[in-house]
């Protein structure tokens, strides 16, 4: 039972950063902008969270810094690809490189260290909002090992799903990705909608980054994301651009990461690299084997002139 609870807590901790980033990517891709820059957004968010916490002393301000810096990275990507019509894939890759470089550069400039930042106060765990008495032991144990961002991430996932499915702005956003000409003819401001979608996606991904740095750990490590942003993009593809599909894909990748960590603890004698490769290999295998009918948004990657 305890093992099961630990496993579920581990699964949620691994899936939630991916969930936030993947839903951010979903917003931007449904609006018609290719977003491979999730990696950079997460990385910037992770660094900004630590920096914000270190400067202000409050982890909530750190979270806010992560969200806003993610949105700023989104603005760079959106500006380059919408306003300046750069190739969206290359612009994403440049943004990712910029994030790696800039976080490492600033880490050295601000903290005067290489590799790992000094520790800051992490976000509280879920047990801080539980009442003191009248809670079953198992639940309390689960809450102690779970960051407060987990329910927030799940709520955001549900909110984004509802937004896309049942609201008028959500429909408009999807219209921009499916047929921008028709959307413009219907009187929508296509570029602005896309810009806002990419920035919001960046904010979510930045929050996912904050989960990694001040949710799970309490410090920033150079290149802390380790390709999780790319896994999130893969989750969007695997989920066939549908919120429920993306949610399932994220759970699957979270499982992969959790299993990798679980195995590494279970069999410490086996080489570590074999476990590290599990999430990527699982992702690749599923991409290769899975066939679905849904296609990407029709106008994905195309900027109307």
């Amino acid at each position, binding site marked *: 039972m305890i093992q099961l609870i630990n496993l579920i807590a581990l699964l949620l901790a691994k899936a939630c950063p991916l969930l936030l980033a993947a839903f951010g990517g979903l917003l931007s891709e449904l609006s018609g902008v290719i977003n491979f820059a999730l990696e950079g957004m997460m990385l910037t968010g992770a660094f900004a969270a630590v920096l914000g916490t270190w400067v202000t002393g409050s982890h909530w301000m750190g979270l806010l810094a992560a969200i806003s810096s993610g949105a700023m990275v989104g603005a760079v990507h959106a500006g*380059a690809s919408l306003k*300046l019509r750069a190739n969206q894939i290359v612009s994403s*890759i440049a943004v990712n490189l910029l994030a790696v*470089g800039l976080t490492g550069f600033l880490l050295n*400039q601000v903290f005067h260290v290489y590799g790992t930042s000094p520790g800051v106060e992490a976000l509280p765990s879920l047990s801080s909002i539980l009442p003191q008495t009248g809670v079953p032991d198992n639940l309390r144990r689960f809450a102690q090992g779970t960051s407060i961002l987990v329910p927030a991430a799940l709520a955001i996932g549900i909110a984004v799903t509802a937004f896309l499915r049942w609201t008028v702005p959500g429909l408009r956003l999807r219209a921009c990705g499916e047929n921008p000409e028709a959307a413009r003819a219907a009187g929508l401001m296509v570029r602005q909608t896309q810009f806002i979608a990419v920035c919001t996606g960046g904010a979510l991904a930045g929050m996912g980054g904050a989960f990694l740095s001040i949710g799970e750990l309490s410090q920033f490590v150079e290149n802390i994301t380790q390709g999780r942003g790319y896994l999130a*993009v893969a989750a969007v593809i695997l989920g066939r651009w549908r919120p429920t599909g993306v949610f399932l894909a994220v759970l699957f990748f979270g499982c992969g990461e959790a299993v990798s960590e679980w195995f590494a603890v279970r069999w410490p004698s086996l080489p570590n*690299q074999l476990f590290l*490769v599990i999430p990527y290999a699982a*992702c690749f295998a599923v991409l290769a084997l899975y066939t679905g009918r849904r296609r990407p948004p029709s106008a994905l990657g195309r900027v109307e002139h």
Partner: protein
Amino acid sequence: MEMNRGEEKAKASRPWRFFSRVFQTPVPNPLRRLSAGFLTAPAAGLLICMGLALAAGAGPIDLIRTIWSGSWGSAEAAINTLTKMTPLLCTGLAVALAYRAGLLNIGCEGQLTVGALVSACFAVAGSRLPGFLLLPLTLVCGAAAGGLWALPAILLRQWRGVHEVISALLLNYMAIHLCSYLVSGPFGDGTAMGRTPPIPAWAQMPEVWRSGSLFFTLAPLIALLLCFGAWLWLSKTLWGFEARSAGTNFDAAVNAGISASRWQIMIFLKSGALAGLAGALEVCAVHHRFYRSFSPGYGFDGLTAAFLANGSPQWLWLSTAFMASLRSADKLLQIGLNLSPNFILVVQAVLLLSVVSQGGIWRQIDKFSSQARRSSRKDDSTHQPDRAVTG
């Protein structure tokens, strides 16, 4: 890169159109052509980076002097830079070739690592072979391994419609972890260093020139020759034309009877093979063995170099020389100016961003200047036929 020649020329003239409009003078032709890909956007990007360095306490003069003395200032530094140029030429060519066929090969990092490991293992295992056979076979093995490592990515694109960037990135991570495991376990030299045994002396790249401890191998020449050959192939042969047409307009190519998707697969495999060859050359000419975390980012450097050269193999020597200078100056930057090596990555990213958006930047400037002209024309009522701003 995706546009045809005429459009490229129009784009090249755009900065100078602005210049002539402001200063009311025609601009000499060679200058116009130079501004096509190399000068305008990178200059803007470099200015941004200098601002960043200034904010970190390094003046622009110091910065340029340090980079120069770290990369070309002495014979040792120059040879170091040329050595660093070799893998960049190969990976840059890999990216440029794939890009001309409408693909983005971002998996160079993984292909290079796999190519390097396989070639090192082959050279160690085949040490009974004579020298004239061992070295070429080693290089071929590395290239084949790189090509094979690129195969899943392109097949996934053709069969499942998964973008090759995502699958290639996943393959990168897999390659790095797997090679790290293999080299610390089965293929290692028994120490805890995470490296293979050294390759035999007759598998090493022959030296062209040596003076004291400084030497210069055949490897950069091979890479330069490859670039030259790729340029010839791409721009002077029918095959090159067919491959390029798959990149410029896929549907038109298919309608014209060119099997465009087959060309894309072929080119992507070649691109992977070039990246693998970069690894093999590194093993044979520089390190003489494979070790853990082999590539210090040659894949992404190659990407930037390819875009700086506007996807043309004939200009790669210039852009890779630039990237290699930055790379080989990073230690001096760290010691002399206290800039972390990540500064190079920032420079690279800003350059990449400015290069891919330079068309848009000039379009914006055109828009402003034509708006300004139009409003000034309203005041004095001299009428000229208005040339529409294209783009």
